[in-house]
């Protein structure tokens, strides 16, 4: 089936290379969307939105209103609304590569992209809209601004469930994978990232200290470990695509197109 020697057949026109001079170009497009996405993520949440690192939940009402009505916050959410969809490309690519694991059923990869598909909305776009609502109408009463501020940050920092399942499924898949597409230590690292999500669970009950949404444990620890994990994952994803044998691709490729 997956053989380079599949003969040319009437349904396929091999004389049309079109954009496909590189047979993995489709995967590379999706791969390079990952750095693009995270650079945009930084511009949106760190530079424009000032959402990361987060201000304290214990802020005075006047400061909350000042934060919420910043015009830059609206610009950040406009960028987010335009670009958040890019993560669909990242997820599609993960599914494509996880499919190559041996001894791993589709259950894990389907679950992986399903939770990521859900996770982006409560964890990213919905909080963005809470901030955009506050910035759109400075005339809202202060107590509404405070509610939007809290709803925004609690969703943004506190959306845990989707990502916990994402890390779990990924770790199980890597442990089971006989082919070792991703190294085993990345699975352990994935579990570590999962634990940081658990540590963030108290953001809903505390306003100060290390477990608050701006806390050393709930925010900084989790974010640093997540960035490190995401970086390693991206590196190994790059390696996996690069080393994927041409015969595994769903195309009958001719040698001169390799």
């Amino acid at each position: 089936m997956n053989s380079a020697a599949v003969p040319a057949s009437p349904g396929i026109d091999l004389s049309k290379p079109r954009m496909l001079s590189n047979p993995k170009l489709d995967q590379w497009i999706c791969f390079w969307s990952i750095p693009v996405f995270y650079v945009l993520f930084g511009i949106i949440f760190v530079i424009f939105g000032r959402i990361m690192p987060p201000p304290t939940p214990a802020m005075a009402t006047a400061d909350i209103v000042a934060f919420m009505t910043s015009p830059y916050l609206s610009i950040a959410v406009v960028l987010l609304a335009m670009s958040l969809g890019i993560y669909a490309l990242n997820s599609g690519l993960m599914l494509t590569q996880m499919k190559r694991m041996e001894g791993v059923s589709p259950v894990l990869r389907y679950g992986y992209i399903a939770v990521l598909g859900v996770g982006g909305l409560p964890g990213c776009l919905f909080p963005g809209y809470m901030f955009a609502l506050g910035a759109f109408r400075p005339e809202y009463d202060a107590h509404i601004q405070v509610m939007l501020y809290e709803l925004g940050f609690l969703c943004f920092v506190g959306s845990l469930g989707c990502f916990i399942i994402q890390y779990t499924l990924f770790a199980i898949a890597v442990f089971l994978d006989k082919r070792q597409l991703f190294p085993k230590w990345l699975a352990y690292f994935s579990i570590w990232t999962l634990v940081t999500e658990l540590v963030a669970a108290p953001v809903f009950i505390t306003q100060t200290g290390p477990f608050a949404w701006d806390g050393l444990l709930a925010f900084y620890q989790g974010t640093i470990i997540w960035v490190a994990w995401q970086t390693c994952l991206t590196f190994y994803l790059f390696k996996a695509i690069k080393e994927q044998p041409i015969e595994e691709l769903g195309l009958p490729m001719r040698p001169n197109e390799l």
Partner: protein
Amino acid sequence: MQTKDQLICLWLVPFFGLAFLFAFWNANGFFPPMSPTMTAEEVATFYQDNLASIRSSMILCNIIGLSLVPFYMVIIVQMMRMVHASRVFSYSYLIAVVNGGTMFALADLAWLNAAFRPDRDPQLTMLLNDLAWFAFITPVGFFIVQNFCLAMAILFDKSAQPVFPRWVAHFNIVTALLVAPSACALIYKTGPLAWDGAISFWLHMTTYVCYVAVMFIVTRAAVIRQATESSTHPQTWQEQAA
């Protein structure tokens, strides 16, 4: 491969499409849309005065809100028929469709909630109304990625008999670009980019209606071609090789 089920899903499009148009035409405040410059009291009064039409239309939209999902699934099945090195664009397309649909469902629920208790604090009614319009008009990112994936899939298709003609790829890119500026409705209360403006609302809605109509026609043609092809020769190169 079966094509009857695909045709059934396709023919749901004109049915539900007309139901959507009816729902938005029936609800006061959509054609033309409510202005974002209305004050909280004006918004609250608007809901009090137009309760019946808003409720009936939004309940209808709640029922049919995700009725275009089967249509997009037909497009995915057609993408799967293309000869690609990987299925990556089909998978990404699926995720983008699901997310876009969720945002419409959220918008509809916010409108219904605003209309549920018309004597509520006007600021809260305005909040729900703003949230509904934001969720309805501005999450363009999913539509952009969805169209990008379909366009890429068409351009990368190595079938001798392309599933979709190449102009469909360009058409998808152009519609994505036309819809993209609507995200600016998160900032502007007046002018073409406001949620009732020429670009964010009128161009967006017209583009989307034309998009669904054109995609309905080309997808139907692709499914019918698939039916004739599967009766004459094998479906995929895998089957041919086997």
